[in-house]
């Protein structure tokens, strides 16, 4: 069972307390964007077999959205961080790199 620590209330929440929200750090496009950019924003989700950054909501806890770094091939959780981050924290990226030397890094 997946357990994520909510960075706001500090509760180590298990899966039934949480709601998955899909890929994190989406770049939003609107009027004026090209068809390709808008398609990418709406449908082209990253789907890596390995390190993945996601949005989660502590739905049956404090109710807040947060972000998590997780491995989709092993279900290992690398860490969680506040939803206000525009990219994964540097120390978290370093931690992932140490555990997954072949990881290409956050793109």
């Amino acid at each position, binding site marked *: *069972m*997946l357990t994520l620590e909510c960075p706001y209330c500090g509760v180590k929440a298990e*899966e*039934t307390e949480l*709601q*998955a929200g*899909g890929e994190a750090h989406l770049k939003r496009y609107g009027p004026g964007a090209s*068809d*390709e950019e808008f*398609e990418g924003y*709406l*449908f*082209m*989700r990253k*789907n*890596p*077999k390995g390190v*993945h950054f*996601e949005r989660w909501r502590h739905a049956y806890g404090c109710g807040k959205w947060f972000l998590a770094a*997780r491995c*989709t*091939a*092993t*279900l290992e959780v690398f860490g969680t961080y506040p939803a206000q981050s525009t990219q994964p924290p540097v120390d978290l990226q370093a931690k992932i790199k140490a555990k997954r030397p072949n990881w290409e890094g956050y793109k």
Partner: protein
Amino acid sequence: MAMRRYSAFAIAKEAMSYHLGWERAWGSPAPKKKYDVIIVGAGGHGLATAYYLGKNYGITNVAIIEKGWLGGGNTGRNTTIIRSNYLQDPSAAIYEKARSLYETMSQDLNYNVMFSPRGLLMLGQTEHEVRGYKRTVYANNLQGVATEWISPAKVKELVPIINIDGPRYPVLGALYQARGGTARHDAVAWGYARACSGMGMDVIQQCEVTGVRTEGGKVVGVDTTKGAIDCDKLGMVVAGHASVLAEQAGFRLPIESLALQAMVSEPIKPCMDVVVMANTVHGYMSQSDKGEMVIGGGTDGFNNYTQRGSFHHIEETVRALIETFPMISRLKQLRQWGGIVDMTGDRSPILSKTPVEGIFVNCGWGTGGFKAIPGSGWAMAELMARGQSPLTEEFSMYRFREGKFIDESVAAGVAH
């Protein structure tokens, strides 16, 4: 390798020599240097594609390469349900093509796939669902797909073990497809593999693609764990790993991979001879020929490549089904497993050309690929051989950019 015909006569003849003369059903060749067509993925869809390339278009210099073992992915992990009661016209066309091909598959392949058109019900358990399914019935009648809306009394007659009175979700009727049903999933993969092998194609197992080679925007071959293999055309038919393979070829797909689980109970005496899907409460059930109740539910909510899902989804599925089928509450579950399904934004598949010339992709069947295997193979073979197919036209990977969705996510409920 030449295919020896299976028949009652062949069994009688073999009985004379203690059944020692049976040959392997398909060969295990080493890869050749070059093929006209390489299909990546020896599951149902990949093998069916290869089969119809040979049968309909005479293209037999084909290799089907498989990372694991034949039919070991979602082909061997589904709940074997076959139906074609979809809302949208392009879906109904390809799923009904598949269902009709299932009718004669055992004869066509000379391999018993145990197709059992036992009838399939999708229960209406809320007013909204009733309205939605009636709409589907009307659409199906226009599409030439035989379905009907039946009353709760008729549901009870077809499924004596069902509790139609609720209390929370009473059965208000059902969408009934009399020629829907099940088939033996492993046999579908084995039958196609044997037929492909019989046409001189190479089914190469334990051979993982590690890279896709292109020259000037055109595919020239693949790198594998058994060496480099050249090809003129490449078909990617790998379900849950579609994104991984597409990335190797340098393009992206609108796909997310999720875990979907299923389970079977201990075998019990025959008690239900139809397939029942209860989409409001996320569960579907049928009884296998061995007597096991085959149960499936919904997907997990997050990206996952591990072929195992979360326990609470099983709990939800079983909890829901017990309300509708009280007699299963004491059943022990025998096995549980997961598969990785490839979900698209509109919950419809992708059968398409790609940005790389010579590469074709068949994926995105999500939670409902098994029922589509022969139709998908038929259409994909036409697409690869002729460059277009009326069945795949609407299923292009570019439909998301154009906003031309084939929206089955609402129409088909949870369980495809």
